[in-house]
C-alpha cells in the first residue's frame, strides 16, 4: 500500500496502479477516454491530466497524465488545481474541433461518455471557426453502424479489436486529424466480439445497428438484471425494453464472469424475443381460439385423463421451471430431454466437478492461467466469451517478464511488445483449426478418439499412475511430453475441455490431466451446450431415449414438453413416433418449432426477458435473471403454467419454487441466495426498473386510452415496473441500471466497483455451487485410434457462434452472419472423391439411401476420414455426430438441400 495526497487529502491506495485508475477507485471524478480498465493505458487522449508536485514544498506542480503515472508512496497530486482543470477543458475543446455538435439527434446521446466528460470538464464555448473534417462511413455488417464524423480518435476501438480481441480487419488509417478507424473495404466485421465496440467507443462512432432499428433513449428503456441464455457461460446482461419490445442487450459488468465484454451472439441474439415466430396465442388442436382459462382447464383435464405423464425438461429453461415440471410429473417420469450422448457427457462433467477435487475456474480466473491446454474445443464457437479470456491469459508470460523489467502491467503497448519473447504456453488440440490458433504455442488436430488419446498420454506423462494409451506414434508422444512439461512448470495450469467433440473419453482424459497435477492447483474448465445444461445435470433425470421407450412400452401415454424442441435431440422418425403414440402432447414454449407444431395444447411462454429464474453456468455458478417487462396475456412464464395445474401444490410464488428446489437438491441448497427475494425493499420501496428520467409514461398508451393505466404489479421479484423507488445501495444481483450522477454512460460502472476492473461492491452476483473436494479414480477407458475406412466418413459436428444455438438463430442479425451450410473435408478425401471446393456431394447412409446433398469446403486441418458439419443447424438435422456416411460427387443440378432430404 502507498500513502498519497490528493487535493490535500491523504489516501491509502494500492501500489503499482496508475493514478487514473486509483482516483476512479477512490470515487473521484477524473475524465478520460483512451484508458479502459480492460485495455490498460495508452496515453493518447491526454484527458486525465492532473498536477503532480515534486515534494511537500512545491507549490507550482507540473502536469502529468494520470493514466501514465504510477502511484508512488508519499506523492502529492491535485485533480482540482486550476491549471489541470484548464488543460482538461482545453483538451475537450480540441477534441470538439471535429466533433459534430448534434447530440440531440445522435444515437449515443444520453449514454455518451464524451458527453459526460465534456460536461465534467466544463467546456461550453466553441472558439473553433474552421470547417470540420468529414468522413465517409462504411457498411460493417448487420451488427454495427459506423459514423466516423463523431470520432475523437481515442484509439480504443482498434486497441480492443486488434490487441484485445485478436482480429485485424478493423484498423486505423490516415494521419494527423484525418485518422480513420474502419475496414480496408466495406464488409461485415469479422470478430466474434465486434459488438463490444458499441460500449468501448466513448462516443457514437460504433453503435448497435439492431438497436437503431427500434431505437429508444437509454433513459426510456426499462431494464432488469439478466443472464445471457445463448451459451453456458452465464454472462450478465442488461436487456432494455420499450413499448413491450425488447430493444437491445448491453453488458452488465460482472467481476468474475464477463467483466466489461460480451460476445456478438450474446449481444445481438436477443431479437428472437420479438420474432414473428413468437408464440403469443394459446392453442388447442382443433379449436380456433383459446383463452387462459380454457388452456388451463384443458391442461388439467389432460393430466387427469392421462395414464402416466412424461415430463421433458429443458436445458434452456430455469431451474425453477424444470423443478415445477419435475414436481408435476414425478421423479420417475422426469426426463432431461437430451440425446443419449449429451446426457452422458453432462453427467460425466457434473460428477467430475462435484467429486473430482479440481477447481472449476471463473472467466476471471481463466485470465490468470499461465499454461493452457485446450482439449477438443473451438472455444470461440462453443463458449465465445471464454475465448476472449483465454486470449488474455496468453499474455501472462509477458506480464511476468514486464514485472522483471519494471514495466507496469498497465503500460499496455509495452507489455504487448514482450509477447513474442515471452510466449505463454497455450496448446490447442482440436478437431481442426480454431479461432484461437494465433495465440497457441502448438496446435494439433485429430478426431475425438485421438484427442482423447493425446490427453491420456499427457496425464500419463505427468503421473505414471495414469493409464497410458497403447500404440501412440512418436509425434504424439513427443507432443504429450512437451505439453506435460509446460503444465508441470506452471503455477496456474488450466485445462479446457467440453462437450463439442461428443466424446466421453475427451472429458475423462481432461480430468486425468488435471488430476495428475496435484501440486499446482490445476483448474479444469468445461464448455457446455446450453445456458442451464449444468443445472439440469445437477437436478438429474432420465435421457430422452428412455422417454421414447417408456411411451412405447405403454408406461405413459401423455407428455408435457417444457421449452425443448426435441426434434433437435433425436431423429425425426423417433420423435414423430413418440409424439404420435402420445395421447396428449402439451408443449410449453416461446418460439414456433417442429415440436410446437405437434402440440395438442400449446402454451405460450415468456422468454428470459419476461420471466424470472435461476440458471447454473459452466463454472457451477447459480445466477438469477429477472423479467425486464411484464408479459401480456395470454403469455405466462413456464413455471406459472405448471403451477396453475398443480392444485394441491404448496407453492404460489417463484420464490417458493426456488426454495423448494434448493431444499430438494443438496447441491442446489444455496441457490436462494443468488439474489434477494421478492420481499426485498429499499427504504420500503421495491427497486424501479425504469430510470428516473423515464419519459412518456402518461402518454405512451394515449393512442389506446387517454387515462393513464396503473403500472403492472410484480409479486415475484424485488422490482417494480415503475420509476418510483431507488436503486441506491441495492446489491449488484438486483442492480437494474448502471448510472451515477454525471456518468450517463455505462462507464459509470466505476462507481459500483470495489476498485476499477475489480469486483462489484457487495460482491459479484451469483452463488458458486461447487468447491473442489474429493477425488475420482483415474479414468481408464482409452479408445483406440481413429482409423479412416475407405469409402466411409464419420460425421463430426462443429459448433459455430452464429447458427449453432437455437434461440439466437431466430434473430435476424445473427441469421445474417450464419455461414452457409456446407460440409468440411480433408484435401485427400476430396481428391479421392474427385471434388474441389464448392462442389456438391451426395451424403448417403451406408445402405445407399440419400440423406442430402451438400456443398463441400476443403479444410486442410480436418483429419482425413471425417466429415465436418455445423452443429445445431435445422437443415442438417438428419445428420448426427458419430454417424457413418458415404459420399459421392453429386449431380450439379441436384443441389437443393431440402428437396433432397430422404
Amino acid at each position: 500500500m502507498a500513502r498519497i495526497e490528493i487535493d490535500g487529502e491523504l489516501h491509502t491506495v494500492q501500489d503499482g496502479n496508475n493514478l487514473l485508475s486509483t482516483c476512479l477507485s477512490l470515487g473521484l471524478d477524473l475524465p478520460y477516454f483512451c484508458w479502459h480498465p480492460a485495455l490498460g493505458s495508452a496515453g493518447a487522449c491526454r484527458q486525465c491530466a492532473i498536477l503532480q508536485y515534486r515534494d511537500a514544498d512545491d507549490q507550482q506542480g507540473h502536469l502529468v497524465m494520470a493514466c501514465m503515472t504510477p502511484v508512488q508512496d508519499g506523492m502529492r497530486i491535485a485533480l482540482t488545481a486550476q491549471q489541470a482543470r484548464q488543460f482538461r477543458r482545453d483538451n475537450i475543446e480540441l477534441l470538439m474541433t471535429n466533433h459534430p455538435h448534434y447530440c440531440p439527434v445522435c444515437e449515443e446521446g444520453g449514454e455518451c461518455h464524451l458527453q459526460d466528460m465534456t460536461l465534467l470538464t466544463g467546456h461550453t464555448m466553441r472558439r473553433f471557426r474552421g470547417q470540420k473534417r468529414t468522413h465517409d462511413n462504411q457498411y460493417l455488417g448487420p451488427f454495427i453502424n459506423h459514423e466516423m464524423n463523431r470520432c475523437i480518435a481515442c484509439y480504443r476501438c482498434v486497441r480492443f479489436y486488434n490487441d484485445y480481441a485478436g482480429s485485424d480487419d478493423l484498423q486505423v488509417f490516415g494521419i494527423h486529424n484525418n485518422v480513420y478507424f474502419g475496414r480496408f473495404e466495406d464488409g461485415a466485421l469479422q470478430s466474434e466480439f465486434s459488438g463490444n465496440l458499441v460500449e468501448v467507443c466513448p462516443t457514437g462512432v460504433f453503435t448497435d445497428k439492431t438497436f437503431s432499428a427500434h431505437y429508444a433513449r437509454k433513459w426510456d428503456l426499462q431494464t432488469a438484471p439478466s443472464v445471457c441464455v445463448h451459451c453456458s457461460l452465464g454472462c450478465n446482461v442488461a436487456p432494455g425494453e420499450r413499448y413491450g419490445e425488447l430493444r437491445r442487450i448491453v453488458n452488465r459488468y460482472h467481476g468474475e464472469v464477463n467483466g466489461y465484454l460480451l460476445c456478438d451472439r450474446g449481444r445481438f441474439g436477443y431479437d428472437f424475443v420479438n420474432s414473428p415466430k413468437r408464440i403469443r396465442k394459446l392453442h388447442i388442436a382443433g379449436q380456433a381460439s383459446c383463452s387462459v382459462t380454457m388452456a388451463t382447464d384443458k391442461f388439467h383435464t389432460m393430466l387427469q385423463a392421462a395414464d402416466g405423464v412424461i415430463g421433458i425438461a429443458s436445458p434452456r429453461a430455469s431451474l425453477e421451471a424444470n423443478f415445477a415440471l419435475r414436481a408435476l410429473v414425478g421423479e420417475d417420469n422426469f426426463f432431461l430431454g437430451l440425446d443419449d450422448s449429451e446426457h452422458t457427457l453432462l453427467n460425466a462433467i457434473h460428477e467430475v466437478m462435484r467429486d473430482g477435487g479440481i477447481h472449476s475456474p471463473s472467466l476471471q480466473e481463466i485470465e490468470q492461467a499461465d499454461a493452457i491446454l485446450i482439449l477438443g474445443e473451438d472455444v470461440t464457437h462453443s463458449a465465445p466469451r471464454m475465448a476472449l479470456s483465454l486470449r488474455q491469459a496468453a499474455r501472462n508470460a509477458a506480464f511476468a517478464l514486464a514485472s522483471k523489467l519494471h514495466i507496469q502491467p498497465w503500460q499496455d503497448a509495452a507489455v504487448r511488445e514482450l509477447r513474442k519473447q515471452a510466449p505463454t504456453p497455450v496448446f490447442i488440440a482440436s478437431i481442426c483449426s480454431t479461432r484461437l490458433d494465433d495465440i497457441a504455442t502448438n496446435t494439433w488436430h485429430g478426431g475425438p478418439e485421438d484427442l482423447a488419446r493425446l490427453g491420456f498420454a499427457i496425464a500419463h506423462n505427468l503421473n505414471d499412475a495414469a493409464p497410458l494409451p497403447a500404440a501412440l506414434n512418436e509425434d504424439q508422444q513427443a507432443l504429450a511430453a512437451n505439453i506435460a512439461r509446460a503444465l508441470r512448470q506452471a503455477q496456474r495450469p488450466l485445462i479446457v475441455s467440453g462437450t463439442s467433440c461428443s466424446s466421453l473419453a475427451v472429458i475423462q482424459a481432461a480430468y486425468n490431466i488435471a488430476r495428475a497435477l496435484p501440486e499446482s492447483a490445476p483448474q479444469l474448465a468445461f464448455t457446455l451446450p446450453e445456458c442451464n445444461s449444468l443445472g439440469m445435470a445437477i437436478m438429474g433425470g432420465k435421457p430422452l431415449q428412455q422417454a421414447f421407450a417408456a411411451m412405447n412400452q405403454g408406461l405413459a401415454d401423455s407428455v408435457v414438453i417444457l421449452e425443448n424442441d426435441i426434434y433437435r435431440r433425436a431423429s425425426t422418425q423417433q420423435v414423430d413416433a413418440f409424439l404420435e403414440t402420445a395421447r396428449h402432447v402439451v408443449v410449453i414454449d416461446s418460439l414456433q418449432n417442429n415440436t410446437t407444431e405437434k402440440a395438442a395444447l400449446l402454451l405460450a411462454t415468456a422468454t428470459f426477458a419476461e420471466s424470472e429464474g435461476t440458471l447454473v453456468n459452466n463454472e457451477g455458478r447459480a445466477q438469477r435473471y429477472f423479467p425486464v417487462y411484464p408479459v401480456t396475456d395470454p403469455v405466462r412464464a413456464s413455471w406459472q403454467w405448471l403451477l396453475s395445474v398443480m392444485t394441491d401444490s404448496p407453492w404460489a410464488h417463484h420464490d417458493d419454487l426456488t426454495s423448494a428446489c434448493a431444499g430438494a437438491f443438496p447441491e442446489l441448497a444455496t441457490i436462494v441466495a443468488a439474489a434477494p427475494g421478492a420481499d426485498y425493499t429499499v427504504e420500503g420501496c421495491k427497486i424501479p426498473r425504469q430510470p428516473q428520467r423515464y419519459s412518456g409514461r402518461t402518454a405512451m398508451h394515449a393512442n389506446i386510452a387517454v387515462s393513464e393505466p396503473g403500472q403492472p404489479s410484480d409479486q415475484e421479484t424485488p422490482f417494480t415496473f415503475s420509476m418510483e423507488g431507488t436503486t441506491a445501495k441495492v446489491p449488484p444481483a438486483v442492480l437494474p441500471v448502471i448510472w451515477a450522477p454525471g456518468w450517463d454512460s455505462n462507464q459509470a460502472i466505476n462507481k459500483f466497483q470495489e476498485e476499477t476492473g475489480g469486483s462489484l461492491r457487495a460482491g459479484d452476483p451469483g452463488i458458486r455451487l461447487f468447491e473442489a473436494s474429493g477425488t475420482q479414480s483415474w479414468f481408464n477407458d482409452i479408445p483406440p485410434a481413429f482409423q479412416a475406412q475407405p469409402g466411409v466418413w464419420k460425421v463430426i459436428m462443429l459448433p459455430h457462434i452464429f447458427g449453432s444455438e437455437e434461440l439466437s438463430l431466430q434473430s435476424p442479425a445473427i441469421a445474417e452472419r450464419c455461414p452457409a451450410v456446407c460440409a468440411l473435408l480433408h484435401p485427400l478425401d476430396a481428391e479421392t472423391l474427385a471434388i474441389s471446393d464448392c462442389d456438391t456431394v451426395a451424403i448417403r447412409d451406408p445402405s445407399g439411401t440419400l440423406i442430402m446433398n451438400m456443398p463441400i469446403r476443403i479444410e486442410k486441418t480436418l483429419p482425413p476420414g471425417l466429415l465436418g458439419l455445423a452443429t445445431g443447424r435445422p437443415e442438417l438435422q438428419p445428420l448426427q455426430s458419430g454417424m457413418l456416411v458415404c459420399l459421392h460427387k453429386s449431380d450439379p443440378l441436384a443441389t437443393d438441400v431440402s428437396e433432397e432430404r430422404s
Partner: protein
Amino acid sequence: MSQNIRPDRDFTTLKDYRRTGGYQGIRKALTELRPKQVQQLVKDAGLRGRGGAGFSTGLKWSLVPMEDDSAADIRQTRYFLANADEMEPGAFKDRLLLEQDPHQLIEGIIIGAYAIQANIAYIFMRGEYRLAAKRVAHALQEARDHSYLGEHILDTDFNLEIYLHTSAGRYICGEETALLNALQGRRSIPRAKPPFAVVSGLWGRPTVANNVETLCNVPHILHYGVDWYHSLGLGADQGTKLFGVSGRVKHPGLWELPMGTPIREIIEEHAGGMQDGYRLRGFLPGGASTDFLLPEHLDVLMDYDAVAKAGSRMGTGTIIVLDDQTCPVQMVLNLEEFFAQESCGWCTPCRDGLPWTVTLLKDIVAGRGRMEDLYTLAGLTRMLGPGHTFCALAPGAMEPLQSALKFFREDFERYIIGNSATREPA
C-alpha cells in the same frame, strides 16, 4: 568527421576511408577494449546526441542491460539502430555524411553495436535519400567483403550484420520509438516512455538508436582518444558539429566547426552574411522546431547549454535565417503546415491542436483573423507544450510559433488590423 567529404560530391570508398585512418576505431574497440570500456570511453568523451536532444551517447549505451546485469540472462538479443531519417525542415547534415562518407557511419555502428553487444543493426533511412541509400548499400557490401561485417569481425568473437531500411517516409519516423514501430512494420506512432528503448525497444529487446552524425563522431573518439576529442570544443560541449545555414545568406551550406562556435561566426563568416539588400530579422538556431532568436543573440555560442540559455535549442544545429523581407507569420504558417501534416494522429493536443493552429494562421494571413485569435494561438502554444503531448513533435512545432508571437507580434496584428499591404511576402 568531414575529412573525407570531397568537393566533387563523390563518395569515399573503403580504400579511401582506410587511407585516412578509417576502421582504426573498431580495431581499437574490438581488440583492446571490453564493451563496458567502450561505453565508458564514449561517456568520458562527452559526446551528446546530434539528433537534437543532446543526450549523452555513452550514458545511453550504458543503460542497456548487459551480461553482468540480472535482467540480461533472459534477453540475449539486442539491436543497434542508426537513425538516418533526417526530415526536419532546414536540416541536411546527415545527408552529407551518408552520401559522401558512408564507411564512417558503418564504423560508428560497429563500435556502438560492440559496446552494447548487439549482433544486428539497422540503418533506418529517410525514403527520399535515394542516393544515400545507394551509397550506403554499396559501402555495406564493401564492409562485408572485407570482413568488417559478418562473423568474427577482425578475428574476434564479435558478429554483426547491418541492414539498410529505407523508410516509407514520415517525419515522425525520426522519433526514436516511432522509428521502432515503423521498423516493425507498424504505424509509426511513438511509444510510451518508460520503458525506454534501451530496456524494451525493437521487438521488445534492448535497443540503442543513435543519430547518424553522433555515430560519425565515434570512430574518431576511439581512434584519437578522449583528450583529443575534448580539445576540439570551444565551449562547454565537446567535439565538433556540423552546422548549417539556410535562408537569404550569401553562401548557404554546411560546415564542420568546433562545438561552441559563435552564431555570428557561422552566419557572417562561413555563410557569408546576408544577401545584398536583406537584413537579418531573426533565425531558428537549430532547425524548424526551435525558438526564434534575434540579431541580438548573434554572439551566443552554438552549444547545447548556451543556446538553451538564450531561449532556444541547438537542435540539429542547422540555422534557418529569417530576413526582413520575409513575413514571419507566413514563415511560421509554412512550418506549422508541415508539422500539422506530419502529426501522427495519436495524441489529442498534437492531432487536433496543430491543424487548428494552421486554420488560425491561415485565417490571419487571409485577413479573416481576429485579435482574440492571438490569444487562442498563445493558449495553443502552452497547451501543446512539453509534457502535455505524447512525444516532442508538437512542443517542437510550438517553439517557432511561441517565439514569433513574442518577437514579431506586430506582424500578426498588422494582418488582423488589415494593414498588411506594407508587408506583402516577398
